[in-house]
């Protein structure tokens, strides 16, 4: 028992320092509004629960020792009946009143969530088994940004995210910013988010989407408007040509092996679109949709055996010699 309590306390302490995927630490307008509904619910439902338990405890207390031996049943009207009937009416009215309050709060907040606010940033997110394609529309086609598994947002500016799916249903969910919205093949959905706090957050697919549903996460970075614009500018640039000899070899390997069939690296011959864009791979925090940290060891492990790390992933194991593997990783590390 003591151990259980200790574990719960430890878990609570842990949560306090890892609030990057929780609805209880809102960092945007929508999540904050929903938090109001949550707190209202918690209070109203909490009071009702206490009332029920109180009545139950009272009933049990009153009845203590009453029926050790089964006494004769009571069949007629009892003296307490009229009083209980009045209480039942009152109880029903109380439930109804509580529900009216909750429905109203819920309805008003729902309306506020449907409105994005003026001048929203437009982003398109497409769900794939099991990664996220993210596109920003610039003023000119050359300013469009294509990236994957990492969403950048400016603080204080509303963003409207258009949600689509290429294969099966997924669900876009960043609990610190807003509720979730499904990405459904054949439909287009929208979700509005207005982040307020600068920081790193995490989102995760919330609709079961097959074998690797568990490993379909993404990072969210909320920046100042200035930092966001700088990030956007960097993302529109093409990949720089590698200078390091090993990275040059790596580029050749990348372009001569199966890698190029699925991945795009802007400014090179690699133009595949079935996998994530790698033009600025090293600017992201994680690889394989939140599965591994983006460091050299992880890149090597992932390329050497993607099926071992994320069984069923659409990325095949491409046979590479040790030298080739090291070269490809060296090349990928230049994609900043």
């Amino acid at each position: 028992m003591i151990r259980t309590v200790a574990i719960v306390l430890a878990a609570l302490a842990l949560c306090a320092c890892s609030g990057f995927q929780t609805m209880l630490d809102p960092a945007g307008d929508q999540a904050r509004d929903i938090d109001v509904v949550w707190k209202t619910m918690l209070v109203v439902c909490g009071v009702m629960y206490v009332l029920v338990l109180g009545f139950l405890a009272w009933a049990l207390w009153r009845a203590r020792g009453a029926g050790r031996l089964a006494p004769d049943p009571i069949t007629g009207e009892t003296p307490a009946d009229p009083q209980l009937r009045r209480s039942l009416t009152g109880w029903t009215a109380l439930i109804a009143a509580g529900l009216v309050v909750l429905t109203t709060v819920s309805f008003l907040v729902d309306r506020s969530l449907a409105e994005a606010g003026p001048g929203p940033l437009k982003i398109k997110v497409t769900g794939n088994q099991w990664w996220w394609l993210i596109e920003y529309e610039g003023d000119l086609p050359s300013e469009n940004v294509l990236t994957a598994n990492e969403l950048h947002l400016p603080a204080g500016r509303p963003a409207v995210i258009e949600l689509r799916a290429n294969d099966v249903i997924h669900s876009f969910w960043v609990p610190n910013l807003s509720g979730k919205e499904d990405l459904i093949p054949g439909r287009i959905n929208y979700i509005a988010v207005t982040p307020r706090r600068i920081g790193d957050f995490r989102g995760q697919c919330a609709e079961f989407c097959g074998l690797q549903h568990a490993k379909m996460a993404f990072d969210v970075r909320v920046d100042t408007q200035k930092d966001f614009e700088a990030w956007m500018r960097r993302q529109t640039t093409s990949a720089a040509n590698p200078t390091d000899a090993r990275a040059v070899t790596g580029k050749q390997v990348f372009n001569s092996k199966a890698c190029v069939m699925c991945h795009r690296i802007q400014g090179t011959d690699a133009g595949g679109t079935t996998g994530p864009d790698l033009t600025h791979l090293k600017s992201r925090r994680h690889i394989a949709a939140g599965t591994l940290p983006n460091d050299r060891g992880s890149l090597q492990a992932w390329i050497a055996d993607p099926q071992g790390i994320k069984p069923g992933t659409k990325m095949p194991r491409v046979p590479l010699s040790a030298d080739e593997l090291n070269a490809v990783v060296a090349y990928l590390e230049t994609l900043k």
Partner: protein
Amino acid sequence: MTPVDGHLALTAPPPEEHVRLEKTWSDPKGVWGFLTAVDPQAIGKRYIVTGLVFLVLGGLLAAAMRAQLSRPESGLIDPDRYNQIFSMHGTTMMFLFAVPIMEAMSLYLTPLMVGSRTMAFPRLNALSYWVYLAGGILIWVAFAMDVGPETGWFSYVPLSGPQFSPGKRTDIWAQMVTFTEVAALAAAVSTATTILKMRAPGMTLGRMPLFSWSTLVTAFMVIFAMPAVMLSTTFLISDRLIGTHFYNYAEGGQTLLWQHLFWFFGHPEVYIIFLPALGFVSEITSTFCRRPVFGYPVMVLALVATGFLAFGLWVHHMFATGLPHLGNSFYTAASMTIAIPSGVQIFCWIATMWDGKPRFPTPMLFVVGFIVTFVLGGLTGVMLASVPLDTQVHDTYFVVAHFHYVLIGGAVFPLLGAIHYWYPKAVGRMLNETAGKVSFWLIFAGFHVAFFPMHIMGLWGMPRRIYTYPEGMGWDGLNLVSSLGAYVLAAGFAVYFLNLIVSARRGQPAGANPWGGGGLEWATTSPPPSYNFGFTPVVEGREPLWKVKDKLPVMTGLSADHREVLLTSVVDATPEAREGSPEPSIWPLVTAVALTFVFLGSIFNEWFLVWGIPPLVLAILGWFWPRPSHARKTGAKREQAPPGALA
């Protein structure tokens, strides 16, 4: 050992009448007798035992999942196996345990509670059991052969469609659903007809036991809800097998159509599980508080209201799919409204305790555990009804916590109480009280330790249906606690089941009415004879046995030499006619086998739908083939066969 009480069966016939009735109503002995049985008690018992076997199997799957999730990045179970396990857990618990066992309880109890010799369609009951058994065996054999379902018990398209779920896994799942729904429909039709037309004289609708009211409402819900899921799985299987495009958006189909059809069934489904449980709670509370449940008319209205409202809530499973906001708000209001009938019923039960003389043997402990647990689950249900809040907690462990609170707390606790309560009636022996109490406390404590932390996991962002999670999300400790709780829960179930097994041999013999209950089922011996009641009881109040001291008014006039039942009017239960009731028959089993041949074959080749029809037609012809009347067979004076003796 002496029986628990000296109560004799109030409806016991004189000895020589007993012999004649036994000869008329007994199913044959031996294996053949087992296969041809039509006695609702026999069918009900085997249905309940089968349901409990599936509960154990589904529970073992849950234990496996809790082992996998007890720590982050656990490699115990690979993702493909895990997805099959959680799909099988949901499928088994919903389709093979919860709904069938509630149907089974009503098959067993309905004729006893309404004072009838049998049910309206005994052969249909037999068919229901065989079809259900075939469906259960089918999917579990498939699972053992690594072709278990992998797309969840909800099997959303397009994930479950031909493109993303190749192979036979989903086809087998879809056909298993068809099996169990056919079984449920058959049982529901039989239950509803029995309750409406075969009640003992004087048992007006206003005097009906609350359990019968709840099963009556449930039966109608089954009749309206099950066709939706059969339609949806049939569309799915035809998309998969013969290339239709019901759900293929690229060819004009609709992805969301599946969700609408599935949840139009799926939400009433939880009330189909839950309403019979409310009936159990009412019966147990009334018996152990020594007074009728407070507010009978309100209770009945609440059951009926829940039955209607249950069909207007399904969209709250789809708040994140981008449906119009205004429309969603109606479903919010409807979903919240259901808190009113539920809240009213909770009040009435507590009021019954408050104003009664309660004692607390095991069934009553389960009732108190039910109130404490179910109310919490109901309140989180109110939270889920709110569109904005639902978009946060939908598809997280918060929802997992919620529906286990309402399904285990709201349906399984009452079921365990009910089994403990009616076990002496069915088996003739009492369960051990000490073991019963130990099992209750282990189950109650284990349940809350296992499931309460899931609320917090959900709020902290843990999605459902994930086979693993990374370290550092803050979920590790809670998951470990939850897994430990799950094993305590499992230990509680082990004690409970052991008690069921041991007490069947060693339990104290039970009299006709060991708990001093007021319902008609306590007016006959434990276990009841094949003909249930020697004389048809006549009912003069809601708790007929509490109205009388030692003599229950009865009615005579039903034949002892052939199977005859009394039909009464729907509202007032005034006697209307004597009706024949069918003899044991092998044809329900043959029909079930023929049906299995069609369903199973069609998974592999659509032509089975053609080849499979002649055997099915032959089986049904055999079933309905007119045969010499009982009188002619026994050489007695020629007599008109009672009408309706075929069905």
